[in-house]
């Protein structure tokens, strides 16, 4: 196994809200104590329902926001806000909504040129133009799209443009924040295939964020299941999908439709809601919705334990 390209240790992100002039600001723990490693050319999928901290993780790793605690490193280089500018071209992001992520007033050529113009000052205009055309061909955009505006494109083509922009700086890591969930089903598979092809060809490392387990099963090597800002189960794809150990993972998997009538399982229905991140319960965050919860779960937080396939539960399923 090669050395990890991306390594994170105890990443946390706390937002302060409210407060105003007199009130005391309240804390939202969007991300607590998340650790992971991704090896070169591999894909780590982060799954969980909305509000579990997936997108916050994406924003921290992409250096949009600094982590409140914890540290992470890219290729062994520690990332601190002071070094952000130099590490920009190591990590890039593709957003969920291709309608909001492209500047409506810029032509495709300008959108793709911008990262080069800012970060590759040594390149001449013609060299930048050549690079833009090369990447456009790479993601399957026709050369005549060069001078058009984003509103002239469909969602799938816009997402190709967004991927092209992310690739302009030849990053080592690509953070994909639900890259296909805003797209039609038929277009989803095209974009997923493009992403997998690019990964193979360019040796990219993906942090793939999604709530769609069938998509995740298709693309990832490893999975991290998150619940209320914490990782509750991590492991290789086969282990997690075939032998889920955390009750939450089991519930999630049972909710995914399978195209195999023979394997129909009974569906685990969760009651209740995600607890408010403003008021995180003392014990296991999932205890309130868990059918196995015992008094110990409400009092103590289970640590993420195990070798390889790790789980944060006092009563895990037999692996």
């Amino acid at each position: 196994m090669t050395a990890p390209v991306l390594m994170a240790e105890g990443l946390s992100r706390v937002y302060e809200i409210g407060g105003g002039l007199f009130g005391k600001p309240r804390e939202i723990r969007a991300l607590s104590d998340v650790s992971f490693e991704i090896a070169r050319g591999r894909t780590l999928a982060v799954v969980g329902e909305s509000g579990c901290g997936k997108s916050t993780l994406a924003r921290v790793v992409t250096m949009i926001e600094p982590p409140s605690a914890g540290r992470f490193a890219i290729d062994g280089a520690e990332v601190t806000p002071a070094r952000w500018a130099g590490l920009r071209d190591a990590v890039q992001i593709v957003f969920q909504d291709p309608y909001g992520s492209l500047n409506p007033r810029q032509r495709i050529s300008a959108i793709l040129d911008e990262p080069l113009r800012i970060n590759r000052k040594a390149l001449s205009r013609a060299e930048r133009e050549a690079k833009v055309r090369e990447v456009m061909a790479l993601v399957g955009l026709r050369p005549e799209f060069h001078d058009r505006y984003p509103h002239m494109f469909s969602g799938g083509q816009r997402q190709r443009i967004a991927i092209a922009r992310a690739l302009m700086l030849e990053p080592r890591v690509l953070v994909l924040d639900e890259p296909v969930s805003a797209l039609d089903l038929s277009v989803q598979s095209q974009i997923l295939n493009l992403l997998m092809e690019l990964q193979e060809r360019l040796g990219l490392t993906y942090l793939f964020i999604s709530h769609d387990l069938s998509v995740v099963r298709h693309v990832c090597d490893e999975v991290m299941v998150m619940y209320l800002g914490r990782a509750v189960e991590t492991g290789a794809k086969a282990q997690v999908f075939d032998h889920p150990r955390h009750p939450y993972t089991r519930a999630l998997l049972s909710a995914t439709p399978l195209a195999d009538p023979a394997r129909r399982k009974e569906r685990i229905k969760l009651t209740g809601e995600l607890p408010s991140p403003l008021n995180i319960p003392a014990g296991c965050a999932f205890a309130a919705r868990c059918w196995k919860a015992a008094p110990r779960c409400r009092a103590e937080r289970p640590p993420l334990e195990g070798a390889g396939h790790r789980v944060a539960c006092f009563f895990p399923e037999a692996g």
Partner: protein
Amino acid sequence: MSVALRQGPLGEFWYYFRENRGAVIGLWVFAAFAFVALFAPLLAPYDPTQQFRQSVLLPPAWIAGGDWAFPLGTDPLGRDMLSRLIHGARYSFFVGIVVVVVAASGGILLGLIAGFAPKWLDSLIMRLMDVILAFPSLLLALVLVAILGPSLTNAMIAIALVLQPHYVRLTRASVLSERTRDYVVSARVAGARLPRLMFVTVLPNCLAPIIVQAALSFSTAILDAAALGFLGMGAQPPTPEWGTMLAEAREFILRAWWVVTFPGVAILVTVLAINLMGDGLRDALDPKLKRS
């Protein structure tokens, strides 16, 4: 719809603008006004300050006692009304442009800063603008001119200062709504620094409401300059500025109606045309008002 979309942004704009009849009429009147202002020395029959002592307070040509040499009559000093009105268009146009440019550029800059700044600076700028907005605008302009000394230049500075807060608020509001959009975040991920984010990424997406505001405040500027002129705090005689002309002729209202009526009508028509045009601009540029 599909026809409009294929013609590019300008064609689309014209498609929506054309729907509003009043706006198109306003545009033509405004074009005529701009033309007159631009070519005033060629269009006007006489010099605006030349006095014809033998024909003082002559009525318009179509009224008994009028003379076709002075189609709109003459004022109490024997100056040709038509020439003065044509040259007056020049001053009004100049006032409108200078005030809009000064107020808009200052206001946009402050609004962008307020939109991107930390909370304390944002509050500071906005409270300052609230203070300016709390004064009756004409009164504040009067005070400013009184301090700076009455002249057309100082009147323009005062009016620009009074109109500026509207641009600040408008720009800040648009910036706040655009700033959190994904394309701004991705420009940041690409490494764009604050000035680039402000002027290249965000500003072009905030321009539509600002353009509408600019068109509407053009007429406010003309109106305020005329009001200041009327109060003796704007352009000084013998400048043929419309408001100053009204003030000079005040005492002749009953004896010679034309000396007050024509400058008044000129102001009215110009301001009305610009307002109609501005409404049309708003309809065409504001995506929320578009019918799809």
